[in-house]
């Protein structure tokens, strides 16, 4: 850390005494946050791990059951089904969102610096998941919704966007693309802005074409930002809950029973807290592995520019 400029202080050895002297105020300043950290993070985390080894059901005292919960997760077909639909959600959500955001960021960067347009694009991200889910649930309602009424009016078949097993998860994934597109676009847009103009000028002098410039300059220089975007959005995407909770509630036939919804349902639907805790531990481990692998593969910490 930076050393303090001590020119103003005539005393010799002032730095050493200050180091000791500032420990007390530092602890006082940290006290509330430290309390919060211990009470609402460290302790619950430890308790969650402990509960995952018990049969706690909210009513009677937890009893230690060893690895039983973890063992039954292996043979739990609903869990595996929920992993499959979660992955399906993440895949559709992330692929569509990243490509669309990339395209939109490039477009905005090329054509306009308007803060108003960026503000409009960002707006859905600031609106609650619940509201976004309800508006689209209404727009895509089978009988009365605008989209199906329009399909019907032009002679096409109505589509059970939320009600049909085949489409429900895709619909939810796309609704959340709509909500997060602006956020992802802004991050990529900022990455584009951070690429120095002289790199492009040099390429232009060398006679490089548009596509060549995009492939050899824009894309590689954007890699750290893309890595950041992917780590954040994938980890967030895995925890899809709100949209499902207010629309399909896991149905039809578990087609949208994503992992967090399944955990919620286990804990508060059947009060199986021990099992739900074990599922939470598994979810956390999965997310940690995914984040680590992504950081590795995408070398998130290094910029090609600084090399």
């Amino acid at each position, binding site marked *: 850390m930076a050393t303090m400029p001590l020119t103003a202080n005539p005393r010799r050895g002032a730095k050493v005494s200050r180091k000791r002297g500032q420990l007390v105020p530092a602890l006082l300043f940290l006290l509330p*946050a430290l309390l919060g950290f211990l009470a609402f993070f460290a302790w619950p985390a430890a308790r969650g791990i402990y509960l995952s080894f018990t049969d706690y059901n909210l009513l009677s005292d937890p009893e230690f059951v060893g690895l039983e919960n973890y063992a039954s997760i292996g043979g739990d077909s609903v869990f595996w089904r929920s992993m499959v639909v979660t992955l399906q959600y993440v895949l559709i959500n992330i692929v569509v969102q990243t490509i669309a955001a990339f395209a939109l960021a490039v477009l905005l960067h090329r054509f306009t610096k308007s803060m108003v347009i960026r503000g409009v694009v960002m707006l*859905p991200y600031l609106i609650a998941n619940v509201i976004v889910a309800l508006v689209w649930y209404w727009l895509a309602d089978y009988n009365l919704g605008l989209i199906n009424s329009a399909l019907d009016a032009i002679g096409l078949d109505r589509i059970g966007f939320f009600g049909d097993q085949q489409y429900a998860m895709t619909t939810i994934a796309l609704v959340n693309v709509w909500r997060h597109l602006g956020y992802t676009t802004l991050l990529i847009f900022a990455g584009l802005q951070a690429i120095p103009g002289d790199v492009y000028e040099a390429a232009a002098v060398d006679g490089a074409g548009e596509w060549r410039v995009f492939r050899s300059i824009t894309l590689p220089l954007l890699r750290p930002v893309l890595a950041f975007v992917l780590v954040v959005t994938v980890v967030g995407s895995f925890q899809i809950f709100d949209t499902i909770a207010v629309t399909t509630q896991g149905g039809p036939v578990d087609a949208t029973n994503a992992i967090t919804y399944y955990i919620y349902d286990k804990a508060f639907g059947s009060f199986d807290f021990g099992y739900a805790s074990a599922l939470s531990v598994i979810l956390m481990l999965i997310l940690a592995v995914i984040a680590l692998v992504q950081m590795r593969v995408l070398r998130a910490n290094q910029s090609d520019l600084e090399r």
Partner: protein
Amino acid sequence: MTTLTPAPAPASDPRPTSRRRRRGSPDSQAVGRHRNPLSRALGWTAIGLVILVTLFPFYWMLRTALSNNRAMFSEPLSLLPVDPTLGPIQRVLGLQSTADALAEGGSVGDINFTQYLINSIIVCTLITVFQVLLSAMAAYAFSLLEWRGRDAVFGVFLVALLVPGMFTLLPNFLLVRDLGLLNSYLGIALPAMFFSPFVVFFLRQFFLGVNRSFIEAAIIDGAGQWRIFSRIALPIVMPQIITIAILQFIFYWNDYLWPLLIGQTEESTLLTVGLGIFRSQTPQGSPDWAGLMAGSLIAAIPIFILVLVFGRRIVGSIQSSGVK
């Protein structure tokens, strides 16, 4: 890890005046290479479409909220409100009589968005004020105070940033239950009031950028650390404090799962949770769509206002979160 670092203040803090000045600057010319009228037209058409798709659902929310729920079903394609009425808005605010609600085909359940609105405002303000102030204090200790083990302790704090919320959710529910705080404002707010690793992390960056000679001078004048924090450091980073306070307020305003678990009485139901309850009521076999959209609108309007007033700040802060 370093990619999570929000950029330091000066570059990322967009001033209202910067827009016009930037237009003619060399960097905008390096980028705006598009002279071809066809590609210009195509590009702007695409941007226009995105804006339309972004804004249309909000318009539809308004159009539905101003429609008569019963009449609406015969004209699902009408772009304007059907049989325009303020009924749905009055209904969800608890201002419409049961007879009128029935006549408009609306829900007559116990839904009181006036109460939910008050609940949301109180809880989110409580969280934001405490969380930002206490996190700023922690960020100050992690940046401008010198003490042994500082960076190690900070590293431990950051772990909380990386752990998904779902993991601590169930045990925190048990803790709040054991404290006897279910169905109370405090029960919803408490876990978030003491600190947010994200806010500590965010503000620490800006405290690190504070010119230390101000602080040295204050020490010589005999100012205590609290005085230095509250009178010197805090005012310097006030723009960032406001930005993060707005972002956190919006975050908790939109939060659903935690308040769903904790606040289930009318006196502790937040807006998002109220919307979920309202949605599950189906008076005529389908939800009271006009009322539901009216409730959504009421829950979204405070955010619209914040975006109108602080949009530039919010855009700037989101953009800077991805770039080192």
